[in-house]
């Protein structure tokens, strides 16, 4: 109950209720049903049914003959067979085949729930549009699915609350800047993308829009991989994050680029065949960086090193300004 109130607090009463409404009315049976399906043919014996129910701890199964659903046989039918000592009889003789109640894969679970109540039954075979048996659904399946969906709503609501609505909203000063620094090792492909991933998460955490975080992440990833692939002994990635500008610098101390203009040409690469085999060295790194940045500058000298500076200007849309939707219910 406490958590329910918390959810309402986070999403606003209307928000939470309409989400729950939406869930119950729109969640299709296909998302809830069990698809790992156990069935029996009509000429299997009641003894085989007994074994199947016991082995899988279930209380009934659909009966499928000639590729079609022909009935449902349950533990009640088994008890009936036991009473008349007919465990050797085919299940065809004990199953329910007239007036079978079924659910449809695409109907909302709300409809299925209503039928469960009206008919007082425990399970329904689920048919698709071509009347083919695709699953089975129980009341328990629905309860579980709704609980799981509610749990997701909570998590979503909590994430919304944890994340500031506007870039840098959480930090206030006259001159705010966040500096992040990462050492990149030469040849460490396993950790490739680690620094860019951390920068991306940091940006999202302080309220950057996904678009801004994405373009910074893509450009930084390319710069990071360049250090791993091409530098003599690794290098540094330094990010300076300010409310209106983000600057990321990747620098190393060799070998240096002989012809920077040539290196910028799409498709030009000096990567080794081994590295190319891993999918690097397409010669698109600097092109990608240029596309994602507002300004890119490269300084390089052979035998000295390379310094790549990437500048990203935070546009009003990217800082979350003017986005009124996100301000509600927080």
């Amino acid at each position: 109950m406490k958590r329910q109130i918390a959810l309402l607090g986070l999403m606003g009463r209307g928000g939470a209720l309409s989400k729950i409404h939406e869930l119950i009315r729109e969640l299709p049976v296909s998302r809830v049903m069990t698809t790992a399906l156990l069935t029996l043919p009509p000429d299997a014996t009641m003894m085989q049914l007994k074994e199947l129910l016991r082995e899988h701890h279930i209380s009934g199964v659909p009966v499928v003959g000639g590729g079609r659903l022909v009935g449902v046989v349950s533990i009640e039918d088994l008890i009936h067979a036991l009473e008349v000592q007919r465990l050797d009889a085919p299940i065809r003789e004990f199953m329910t085949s007239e007036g079978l109640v079924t659910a449809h894969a695409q109907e909302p679970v709300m409809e299925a729930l209503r039928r469960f109540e009206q008919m007082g039954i425990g399970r329904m075979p689920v048919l698709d549009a071509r009347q083919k048996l695709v699953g089975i659904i129980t009341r328990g399946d629905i309860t579980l699915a709704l609980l799981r969906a509610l749990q997701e709503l909570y998590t979503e609501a909590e994430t919304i609350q944890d994340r500031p609505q506007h870039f840098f909203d959480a930090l206030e000063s006259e001159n705010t800047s966040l500096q992040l620094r990462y050492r990149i090792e030469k040849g460490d492909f396993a950790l490739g993308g680690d620094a860019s991933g951390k920068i991306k998460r940091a940006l999202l955490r302080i309220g950057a829009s996904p678009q801004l975080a994405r373009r910074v992440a893509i450009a930084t990833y390319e710069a990071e991989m360049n250090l791993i692939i091409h530098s003599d002994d690794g290098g540094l990635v330094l990010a300076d994050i300010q409310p209106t500008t983000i600057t990321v610098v990747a620098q190393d101390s060799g070998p240096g680029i002989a012809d920077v203009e040539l290196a910028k040409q799409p498709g030009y690469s000096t990567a080794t065949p081994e590295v190319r085999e891993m999918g690097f060295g397409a010669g698109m790194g600097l092109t990608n960086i240029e596309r994602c940045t507002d300004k890119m500058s490269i300084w390089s000298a052979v035998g000295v090193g390379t310094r790549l500076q990437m500048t990203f200007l935070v546009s009003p849309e990217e800082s979350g300004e003017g986005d009124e939707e996100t301000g509600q219910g927080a």
Partner: protein
Amino acid sequence: MNVGEIVEHLGLQVLTGTDHLDGEVSGGYVADLLSCVMAGAEAGDLWITLQTHANIVAVASLLNVAAIVVAESAPVPESTLTKAAEQGVVILSSSQPVYETVSRLAALGV
């Protein structure tokens, strides 16, 4: 359509990310060159590839793709699976070659 539904329709094997199969799939992207993927794949895409080394996880996670689909049942190293599990990246395996995998996805409307 979400990742789980595609897994079912194509009979894919879920290698990692069993808990993240409800992500909506908005499209697809095919390439083995990582820079092309960085430039072309969108968040919510399925990325179909034959690359299996650990760096594919970083690429997928940076781009927020819905899932990586490794074609032709290419063996995926343990280090890749561990990293993907840590970062909640979904890796699926298709027994079909890339062309067939993509044709079947297209037929589903992806």
